[in-house]
């Protein structure tokens, strides 16, 4: 016991290295020919609405989720149809709530991550981690959920069941 007290700062440091640092993760947990499932901690996820100023109809937005992957590059998970302002910000609020309440985030997207990463010149900031280059990969946003059962689907909103349809891959 005396030994532990004497070396407690060392133990604490080791504990921090083992568990403190490993609490942030990005993991691909499932794939099929055109689907990818990711488990990630919320600190690596940053959703936002992107204004579309060049469109003929005013106040249209694109919706993206930036995800910091395991090699610290940015993966885009994007809703590939345009949204109205209210619709985009409504989903942004709901997804922020999912991220705030959860510690393990599930993201389902259409596409694949087979292509090698190519560092792009654009850089994006993930508030808790810093600024990183995008990696030229992308997924079509389909669903995001946390371990509490909060869930949001790109095309069905938060209506239950969620996820449904394409996800989860193994039912």
């Amino acid at each position, binding site marked *: 016991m005396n030994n532990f007290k004497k070396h407690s700062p060392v133990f604490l440091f080791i504990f921090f290295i083992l568990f403190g640092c490993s609490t942030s993760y990005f993991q691909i947990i499932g794939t099929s020919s055109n689907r990818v499932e990711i488990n990630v901690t919320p600190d690596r996820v940053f959703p936002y609405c992107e204004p579309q100023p060049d469109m003929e109809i005013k106040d249209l937005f694109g919706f993206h989720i930036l995800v910091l992957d395991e090699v610290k590059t940015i993966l885009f998970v994007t809703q590939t149809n345009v949204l109205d302002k*209210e619709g985009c910000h409504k989903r942004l609020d709901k997804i922020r709530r999912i991220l705030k309440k959860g510690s393990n985030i599930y993201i389902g997207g259409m596409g694949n991550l087979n292509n090698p990463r190519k560092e792009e010149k654009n850089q994006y900031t993930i508030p808790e981690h810093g600024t990183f280059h995008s990696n030229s990969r992308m997924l079509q946003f389909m669903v995001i959920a946390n371990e509490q059962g909060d869930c949001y689907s790109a095309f069905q909103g938060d209506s239950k069941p969620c996820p449904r349809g*394409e996800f989860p891959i193994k039912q």
Partner: protein
Amino acid sequence: MPSSMKSKKKITIVREHPLHVQVSNKNPTGITIRDQHQRRLPGTSLSLEDIKSIFKNYNLSSLIYPNPNKLDFPNGNQYDEIIAVWTDYFNQKFNSISPLHPNVVKALIASESGFRSDPPENKVARGITQITKQTLKTLQDPKGETKDFIFYKIRQKDLLDPDIAIPLAIRWLFRKKAMAKQKLKHEPTTEEVILEYKGLLKSKTELKDKALNNFRINYEQLQKT
């Protein structure tokens, strides 16, 4: 749009003529005189009923279908026949030099709605092909940019029916192809037509890159035999 299409007459003038109507105090003889008016020539417009009837009676032999790859969407192949029929219909109607391939339409639908007939989470656009209120209005305007071939009596709620939304989207793609050609001053590529459909051709946003990337992935998968 080929120049030969532009010169074709789509509207004719009908001269003043007698018209049988219901017998009433106003018209005791059951005949009235109708003033001179315009009438669209057959084959230059489609109503809801026309769309249903054409699809029901379409000759399916020698049709080109989209690749039966579901792209991992549960409903991915559900609309292949509608896509095949209407792509063929409008390719013939517009006699296009570079005809539209049904795989383009299928890949577009994947990115617009994931093959959902009524994605409710978007107020600006409706249905499986995400047609906006403004586009629906344009497609039905006899004096508007699609006046050479219009639809009529289509309501917004009809767009929730893929039988209706898909032919409208394909006709709109032909219009968008012409628009892209005007803007770019060259024959547009398939990807440029898709960007014009999405309203992103001249855009510099992330959405443009990502939406194009997504279309490319789906389209490449469909182009594989």
